[in-house]
């Protein structure tokens, strides 16, 4: 690879890492802004006071162990929380519009067209008694006003673009006739059909083998570069994070505990939980391509969170101060201070020690 090619590649990856804060005054190109979102059931809060934003062309990765509330955050962002889940507080604005002010029919017009979601378990997320081609085409019929035959033709093209061999034949298959990886690609094709401005991918590539995963990530990046879509990418795989993210939000037990640009996060993780994840990654890279291995202990159940910092029982640095809930705040003393936030009482100390 020549220097020129390398240059072009990094330009292609379409990253913007300007150090200017996007918090508070919503920037013009902010696609999705979530502020103070709390979602729960009657019994417990499952997502607590989560704030996130993504700009056009930007990829935000959500990471964290199983059960930390990543999927629920995504669902809430789409306005898809339904009983027994309740959105208890928070504001979600999409392209500057407060979603809670929209009626269900207005939301339906946005969903699938401007914001699309790839679900975690694709086989369950597809309708078992309808052909996959039809399920993709339906989006185009509803949002683009295509006829069924036009839409089917386009569905076949979409299937081809996500690397499904014999797309015309597969379009006639039912989900149970395809492998999990194939269904995952069907889901991706479905989400990309209308070239949404916001793409939420919940573990979109987890079910795929490494080669396909690389291919799909490349496809999503290309499409993003082309359409300038904002992307929220949920993954367990820090290798994928390094590959695709511009910014990262680390979630633990329903809360965002650290957010930073991807380089900043990998260079100086400030929250002990993030550090744990990174350490696990170093140990585990060779065995399971970076899937988050266990930090000592488990994520507390949402109904039995420990008092104060939820990470306390597992944290090597825990002390008396940790009985009080640490706020997620900008950490001074490092570059791009506004961009790097962490919710640990000792984050400043870690930052100082690191620099």
């Amino acid at each position, binding site marked *: 690879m020549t220097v020129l090619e390398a240059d072009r590649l990094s330009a292609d990856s379409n990253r913007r890492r300007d150090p200017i804060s996007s918090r508070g005054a919503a920037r013009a190109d902010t696609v999705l802004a979530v502020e103070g979102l709390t979602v729960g059931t009657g019994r417990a809060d499952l997502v607590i006071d989560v704030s996130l934003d993504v700009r056009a062309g930007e990829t935000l990765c959500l990471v964290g162990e199983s059960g930390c509330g990543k999927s629920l955050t995504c669902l809430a962002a789409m306005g*898809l929380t339904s009983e027994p889940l309740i959105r208890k507080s928070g504001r979600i604005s999409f392209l500057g519009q407060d979603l809670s002010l929209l009626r269900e029919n207005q939301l*339906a017009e946005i969903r*699938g067209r401007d914001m*699309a979601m790839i*679900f975690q378990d694709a086989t*369950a997320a*597809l309708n078992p008694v*309808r052909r996959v081609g039809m399920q993709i085409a*339906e989006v185009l019929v509803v949002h683009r006003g295509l006829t069924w035959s036009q839409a089917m033709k386009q569905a076949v093209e979409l299937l081809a673009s996500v690397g499904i061999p014999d797309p015309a034949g597969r379009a006639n298959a039912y989900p149970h006739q395809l492998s999990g990886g194939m269904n995952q690609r069907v889901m991706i094709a479905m989400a990309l059909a209308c070239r949404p401005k916001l793409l939420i991918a919940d573990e979109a590539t987890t079910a795929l083998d490494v080669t396909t995963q690389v291919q799909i990530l490349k496809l999503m990046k290309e499409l993003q570069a082309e359409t300038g879509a904002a992307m929220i990418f949920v993954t367990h795989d820090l290798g994928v994070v390094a590959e695709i993210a511009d910014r990262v939000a680390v979630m633990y037990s329903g809360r965002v505990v650290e957010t930073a640009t991807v380089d900043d996060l990998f260079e100086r993780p400030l929250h002990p939980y993030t550090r744990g994840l990174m350490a696990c990654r170093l140990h585990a890279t060779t065995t399971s391509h970076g899937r988050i291995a266990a930090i000592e202990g488990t994520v507390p159940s949402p109904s039995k969170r420990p008092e104060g910092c939820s990470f306390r029982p597992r944290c090597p640095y825990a002390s008396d101060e940790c009985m009080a809930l640490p706020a997620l705040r900008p950490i001074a003393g490092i570059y791009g201070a506004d961009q790097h936030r962490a919710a640990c009482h000792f984050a400043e100390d870690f930052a100082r020690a690191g620099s």
Partner: protein
Amino acid sequence: MRLQFILVKLVRGLLTMLLAVTFVFVVLRLSGDPVTMMLPDDTPAAVIAEYRAMWGLDRSLPEQYVRYILSAAQGDLGYSFRDDRPALAVVLERVPMTLLLGLSGFAITVVIGLFAGIAAALKRGTGIDHAAMAFSIFGHSMPNFFLAILMILLFSMTLRVLPSSGGSTWWHLILPAVTLGIINAGTVARFTRSSMLEVLHQPYMRTARAKGLKLTRRVTSHAIPNAAIPVVTILGLRLGALIAGAIVIESVFAWPGIGLMLVNAVGQRDLPVVQTIVLLVALTMVVTNFIVDIAYGWLDPRIETREAKES
């Protein structure tokens, strides 16, 4: 559908019919001598013997049975004791009336049952849901004839808007068909509701919402095709119950179908007619069952793969 599957179904169907016919054959013959019941008390013994010989009742039971089965297999179901015409012809004359009543009742069952069930599921926990479920329990727990009598009391005797007996005009169809429909719609509504509720919670329904489909489309294009699968089985089973119900309903409303004819024929010990009706009813059940199986495979694309895997 594979040949083996069809063959198994066919053999099962034939066995069902054989069983039904055998049962009726034995019970009828053990429950009294048709000749003495039909002829006046003072009929000379010679005449009685003559009738016996004519109808083949003088032979042993096993012999009668074998002869009956052999000729039935060739399509000869014997002669009506009363009418002196082939029993099949006598029965077939009345079949259209029963079909008319049965299918009208079935249509009412399907429309009310599906509509109430779907509405109840979509409006779960609301007044609509409670009303639909109250209706379902009412239909389920109400005996056929009792509802029939209530209907007659209300619409024929009190309001005097509909005729209560006979089958000469379309007006006569309304009460028996509605009675039949209501009785069976309850069960269908309950099954439709629970099937819909289960489907509405499936992840693919969330996907449908995430795709931006509006409620009508989500329900018609995604929920109903899935919810229909168990409901079709129930409808098939209900069709059997409907036929059984039609027999009761026909006699209450004096609707001139095979149900009324069956009741009369049993009273008159017209054995060939009774056997023919039972055979036809059994045949209908078997055919319905077969249609349900076909519809099932057609509604649920997973079935064939499952079958293929099992064998």
